[in-house]
């Protein structure tokens, strides 16, 4: 999420002063909003320049100015909310690459390697779940952020389980270390 869309979202609730926007922005940082609160006034200037927000007093400093969302700002916010996140091409997956490399390295116990990663991921999931367990159940914002991380990590654990099952069924053997290798027919998508 950009600072730009965070500010449009804060203004969607009604007009606000620059200082108020900065305070609300900083009070939410860490959970939902992007991290750089220092860009608030600069971004407000740009949003005004682009006609996405407007203010009454052109002479005041950013902190004392009252800003409101324009209709095109509202449309931009709505379009951003509905725009699918960029999922193609997929992000480079370090774990997939490590496992593929491990299959080529003589002497690596791949099942043990998969288990080491599985344990690490489950330990991380325990920490996120602990965070959810300690928060009040009605802290929906925190639960949504933590759930997103838990589902992502669970997906990786399930991939490890599938990799484990696949390699049990079709054990991979490392190639001889001295033989020349043909070019790989399958490339890892970066």
């Amino acid at each position, binding site marked *: 999420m950009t600072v730009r869309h965070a500010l449009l979202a804060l203004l969607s609730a009604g007009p606000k002063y620059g200082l108020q926007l900065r305070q609300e922005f900083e009070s939410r940082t860490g959970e939902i909003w992007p991290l750089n609160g220092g860009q608030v006034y600069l971004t407000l200037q740009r949003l005004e320049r682009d006609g996405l927000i407007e203010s009454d007093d052109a002479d005041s400093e950013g902190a004392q100015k009252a800003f409101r969302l324009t209709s095109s700002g509202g449309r931009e916010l709505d379009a951003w909310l509905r725009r699918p996140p960029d999922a193609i091409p997929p992000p480079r997956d370090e774990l997939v690459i490590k496992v593929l490399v491990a299959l080529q390295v003589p002497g690596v116990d791949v099942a043990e390697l998969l288990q080491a990663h599985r344990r690490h991921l489950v330990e991380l999931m325990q920490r996120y*779940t602990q965070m959810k367990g300690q928060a009040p159940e009605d802290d929906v914002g925190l639960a949504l952020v933590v759930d997103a991380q838990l589902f992502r990590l669970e997906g990786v654990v399930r991939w490890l389980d599938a990799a484990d099952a696949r390699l049990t069924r079709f054990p991979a053997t490392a190639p001889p270390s001295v033989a020349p290798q043909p070019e790989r027919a399958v490339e890892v998508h970066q």
Partner: protein
Amino acid sequence: MTAAVELRGVSKVYGAGPTEVCALREVDLSVERGELVAVMGPSGSGKSTLLLIAGSLEAPTTGEVLVDGVHLSGMSGDDLARLRRRSVGYVFQDFNLLAGLTAVENVALPLELDGVGVRAAHRIGRQALTNLGLAERAGRYPDELSGGERQRLAIARAVVGDRRLLLADEPTGALDSVNGEAVMRLARSACRQGVAGVIVTHDAQMASWADRVVFLRDGRVVDQTAPPAGPEFLLTPGSDR
């Protein structure tokens, strides 16, 4: 401190000769009161067998099982049955509730079987249902309850009275993630009040509610998680969100 349940070098072999299957191999596992342990592993890794042996529903081929420091191998059949009735609560994926009994009757039944009077058993049962947020459902039959409510009822039955050991086999397997989470919160809360819990699951999210996750493979304990390091710094600036 004496463990609520302890498995020492437990192996379990089913069948003999060419049909012999070794379900558990030299398993050591100790669970304290107040602790919730999740057991994960692929199908056929021995998870359910481990649970049956910990709950004295099966005897190990070799090795020892101790409940509150007492060796089960030295107990008579009657003593084992009493131990199971009084001290051990079981929860299964398909709830295993009695359809002809109301919620409170289901919860009170194990107490009545153990000689507690009907009125006292129902009073304790109602309190257990209240603790799990099911007070309004006390007079309903299982088929009048949602899946999530049925599993909460099964947990109420499993921890009613002075149960010291909660054993659950895929308790969230038939539930969506929100209801599954509610069941795990209850299991964890029961453990915080002094019960020792062992939950078998293939679901990493549900397992992550446990204090410790034990990984089984081919009947052996191959790994376990370290005590959780705490949630600090997971969502602080600069973290991967």
